[in-house]
C-alpha cells in the first residue's frame, strides 16, 4: 500500500502505544483511590421533584360553591414538600380508589403556581350528569383525607414565543378553572400576557369564582373577565352565547390567541364561531375534550356491536386478569372496574400515558381522539382511554407506581 503515515518518530513505538492502550487504561484506573460511589445529581433530583411518580395530597380545605354545584378542594402535599411546580393552565390527574376500582380523573389546576411552592394545589370539581368520579369526590372527600395526584400535565398554557400577547379565553362551566390559575399567575408576576376571559354561565347565581376574578381585576389591568349569561339578562353582563361577534368585540384590533376550555357541548358551539374568525391554526388552542361517550355515533363503528360484552384479558407484568368489557365503553374503564392499577392521565386519547399493546382481538378507535404516534398506528399499540373493544381481546398494559 502506498500509504505510509508517520506520526511519531519511529513507527514501531506507535504500534506499541496502540497495543498498550488497554494496559495503560487499567494502570490509570488502578492508580485511583477506591472511593465510595455516590450517584446523586441535582439535575436528576430536580427532574424527580418536577415529575414524581405521584404527589401525596391531603385535603386541606374545601370551598363549597353551592349554587354552582361545585367544590374547590385545596390540597397540601402530605409529605410537607412543595407541590411540583407547574405552568398555569395545566391539569393534574387524581388517582381515586373508589370501591374496588382505581380510577383516575384529569382536573385543571385552579390555583397559582406560586402556591405550589408553598405546597398547595387546588382543583374545582362540578357535578355533572353521570359523573361518577366527580360525584364520589363531592360527596365523600373530607378535610384530612389523603389521595394521590400526578404533577402538572399537558400543554394548555401560555407560551410567549408561540401565542399572541393577548389571549382571549373561552370558558364554559368548570372550564374556567385553568384560566383562574393563569389569571393568578399574571397577578403574581409569573406569567406576562393580557388575558380576556369570556365565561359562559347559565345565570349570575351559578358563576364560579366571581369574587376571585373581581379581586384579581382590581389588582392587575392585564386580566379582564366578561361573564356571558345564556339564561338571564342583566346589567353588567353579556347575554346569550359566546359568538364570533362577541369574541371580536373584546379581542380588539391587536393580534390574539384563542384558548378554549369547557364541556363538550360548548366546544361544538364555539368551534363553529371560532372558525368564522379566520384565524391561523396556531392561534387556536383547546384543552382536551375527553373520550366520546357515544362511540356508536362515530363513523365506521359497527352498530351491531354496540351492546355486546366481550372478555378482556389484561396482562400487567407477571399478572393476568380477565374481566368483562362493553363495546360501548373505553377499554380503560373496564380495566379500572376490574381493580387493576393501570396508568392513565388525559383520558382523551392524546397524552399516550395509558399506551398499551393489543396481543389479540379487534378494536375501534375514533379518529377524533386518536392521538397515537405514527409508529404505534402501524403497530398494535393503542391508547385504552379512547379505544373500544369489538371482540374478545387480550392487552398488555404498563405498570403503575402508586
Amino acid at each position, binding site marked *: *500500500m*502506498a*500509504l*505510509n*503515515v*508517520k*506520526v511519531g518518530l519511529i513507527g514501531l513505538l*506507535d*504500534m*506499541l502505544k*496502540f*497495543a498498550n*492502550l*488497554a494496559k*495503560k*487504561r*487499567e494502570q490509570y*484506573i*488502578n492508580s*485511583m*483511590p*477506591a*472511593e*465510595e*460511589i*455516590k*450517584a446523586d*445529581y*441535582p*439535575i*436528576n433530583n*430536580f*427532574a424527580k421533584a*418536577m*415529575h414524581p411518580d405521584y404527589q401525596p395530597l391531603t385535603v386541606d380545605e374545601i370551598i363549597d360553591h353551592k349554587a354552582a354545584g361545585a367544590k374547590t378542594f385545596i390540597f397540601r402535599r402530605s409529605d410537607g414538600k*412543595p407541590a411540583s*411546580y407547574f*405552568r398555569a393552565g395545566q391539569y393534574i390527574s387524581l388517582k381515586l380508589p373508589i370501591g374496588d376500582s382505581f380510577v383516575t380523573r384529569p382536573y385543571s389546576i385552579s390555583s397559582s403556581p406560586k402556591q405550589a411552592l408553598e405546597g398547595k394545589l387546588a382543583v374545582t370539581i362540578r357535578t355533572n350528569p353521570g359523573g361518577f368520579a366527580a360525584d364520589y369526590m363531592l360527596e365523600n372527600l373530607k378535610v384530612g383525607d389523603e389521595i394521590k395526584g400526578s404533577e402538572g400535565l399537558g400543554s394548555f398554557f401560555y407560551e410567549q*414565543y*408561540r401565542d399572541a400577547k393577548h389571549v382571549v379565553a373561552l370558558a364554559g362551566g368548570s372550564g374556567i378553572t385553568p384560566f383562574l390559575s393563569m389569571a393568578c399567575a399574571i397577578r403574581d408576576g409569573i406569567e406576562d400576557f393580557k388575558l380576556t376571559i369570556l365565561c359562559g354561565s347559565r345565570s349570575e347565581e351559578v358563576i364560579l369564582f366571581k369574587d376571585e376574578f373581581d379581586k384579581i381585576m382590581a389588582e392587575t389591568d392585564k386580566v379582564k373577565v366578561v361573564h356571558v349569561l345564556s339564561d338571564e339578562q342583566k346589567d353588567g353582563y353579556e347575554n346569550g352565547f359566546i359568538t364570533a361577534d362577541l369574541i371580536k368585540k373584546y379581542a380588539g384590533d391587536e393580534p390574539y390567541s384563542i384558548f378554549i376550555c369547557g364541556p363538550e357541548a360548548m366546544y361544538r358551539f364555539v368551534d363553529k364561531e371560532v372558525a368564522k374568525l379566520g384565524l391561523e*391554526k*396556531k392561534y387556536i388552542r383547546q384543552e382536551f375534550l375527553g373520550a366520546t361517550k357515544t362511540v356508536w355515533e362515530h363513523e365506521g363503528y359497527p352498530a351491531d356491536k354496540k351492546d355486546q360484552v366481550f372478555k378482556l384479558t389484561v396482562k400487567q*407484568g*407477571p*399478572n393476568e386478569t380477565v374481566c368483562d368489557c362493553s363495546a360501548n365503553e373505553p377499554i380503560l374503564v373496564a380495566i379500572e372496574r376490574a381493580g387493576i392499577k393501570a396508568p392513565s392521565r388525559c383520558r382523551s386519547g392524546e397524552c*399516550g*400515558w395509558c*399506551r398499551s*399493546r393489543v396481543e389479540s382481538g379487534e378494536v375501534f378507535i375514533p379518529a377524533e381522539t386518536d392521538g397515537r*404516534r*405514527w*409508529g404505534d398506528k*402501524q*403497530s*398494535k*399499540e393503542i391508547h385504552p382511554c379512547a379505544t373500544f373493544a369489538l371482540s374478545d381481546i387480550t392487552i*398488555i398494559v*404498563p*405498570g*403503575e407506581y402508586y
Partner: protein
Amino acid sequence: MAAKYDVVVVGSGNAGLSAAVSCVVQGKKTLLIDQHNMPGGVASSFKRGRFEFDPSVHEICDVGAGDDLGHVGHIMEKNGIDVDWVTVPDCYRCISTYSDGTPMDVTIPAGREAYIDAIEKYVPGSRASLEKFFDLIYEIRLAKVYMFDGTPNDSKYMQKHFPNTLKTCGYDSLTVMKALGIPQKAIDIIGVYWPYLGVPLDEVNFFHFGNMIDMYVTRRAVVPHHTSHEITMTFMNRFYELGGEAWFNCRAEEFLFDGDKCCGVRTTLGDVECKQVLANINPNIIYAKMMPKELVPEREKKLATARKDNLSTRFSMIYFALNKSCEELGLTDYCVFFSSTADSRKEYERLKSIDNDYNILISYNNIIPDASPEGTCIISFTKLFSSGEDWSKLTPEEYYKAKDKMIAKCISDVKDKLGIDITPYIEEVEVATPMTFARYLGTPEGTPYGFEVTSWDGVIARMTDIEADFNIKGLRHIGAGSFFGDGYSSTWINGDMTAGLACAEISEGGNK
C-alpha cells in the same frame, strides 16, 4: 414465585432494544423492562398538536445499503430489523470562525470525492493530505471489521494489513491530522463533527474519530422516515414476534444476588429470576443504589473515581413546528452547525456555560418532505453542555425562564446567522433540557452520552479488552455508559455484542 427468564434486559433504549432482540434471535427467553411507559429512551417521538417530533436523531451512521452494509446494517439484517431509512445527502453547513479567527461558512456534501472537492475549494492546497486521510480511515474501517469480528486478533496479520492504523491509533485526532499535513483550516472543517463524540480533537482517539468521519462521509448517514419511534417499534415488533416479553412503567429497584452472582432483578412489578442481566443503566447508578455495597468491586470504585468529572455531554433540544414550509422560509440545509469557534478545545471550555453560543439546526422536511403536514415544517435545535453546573443551580421558577431563554436564543440564531425570522410562524414549540433527559433516561445529569471518551478512557482502549469493565458475575453493562460510547449506532452495536457474550455464557452453562 418469581418469574424466570434466561436474560433480563433493563432499560429499553437503543442498546436495550438491540440487546433484547439479539437475545430472542439467539433463542433465549428474554424479558425487557423499562421505567418509562414506552420503549426507546431517546429513540422515541412525541406529539404536539398536528405534529410528531423526533426528540433526538440528527444523523445515523454505519447502516449502509445494498452490498455495502455497515456494522449496524449487518446487525439489523442479522436480527431481522427493517427500517424505512432516508439517506442524508449533505454532511452539514457550518457557520463559525476558523481557529485563526477568520469567519467560516462552509457547506460540505457527503461522499469522499465531493467532500474533498468542497474542502479543497474552501482551503486550496488541502487535497493531497485529504486523499491520504481518506485512505487512512478506509484502512481503519477494514481494521475495525477485523478487530471486532469476534475472533482473536493476530498482531502479525494486523501489522501486515493495517500498519497505518496501528501507527496512528495510539494518538489523539488533532495530532494525527496534523501529522498527515492537513492544513489547520481543513482540520477545522473536518472537526465540525467533534461534539458527536463529546470530547475535543486533541483528546479523542483518532481511530474513533476517523472511523466516524468514514461512516458519515464515505458511507453516508441515514435517518428514519417516521421519527426514531419507528425504529424502536421495528425492534419491539421483532422482539414480540420472537416471543420476547416487555414490561413498561416497571422500575428495576435492585439487583438480586446469589453469593456474588447476580441472579435476578427486584422490580416494581415483582421479582424476576434470570441467568444473565444486561443493564442499560449508567454503571455508577447500579453501584451506588442498586446492589449491596459490599459486592461492589474495588476496581469499579477506582474506575468511578477516575471518571468523576467525566460525564459526557448534556443536551437541551428545542423543537419548533412552523406553519410555513422550509422552502417558503428559505431553510435550505438539513443540518447547520452554529459555533463560536472551530477550535474544539476552546469550544469545549465554552460549552460549560448554560449561555454558550453552540447550536445545531436540523430542518427535517428538507430530506423528509412529509415530516409534517403540507405547508408546515419541523425544525429542531440542539444545544450542548460540557458541564451540568449551571443547570444544577436552577430553581423551579428559573427553570421555565431558562427554557424560554433557549427558545429566544434559537430564534435569534436563525435570524442573525441565516437572516430568517421564524417568529410569526411558530405553531408549536417545546424545550427539552438536561432535566428532561434525566427524567426520561434516568442517566446522571441526563447525559445520553455516558462517560467522556477521554485520552485514557477512549473507546479503543475500552474495546481492546471488552470484558474489563464487566466485573459483576451475571451482569453486563450496555448503553452509552458501556464500552462503545454514545450514539444510536454505537449503542446498537454495543447491545448486540454484549448480548452475544451473555448468551454465549448461558449456552456454555457456566459462570464467568
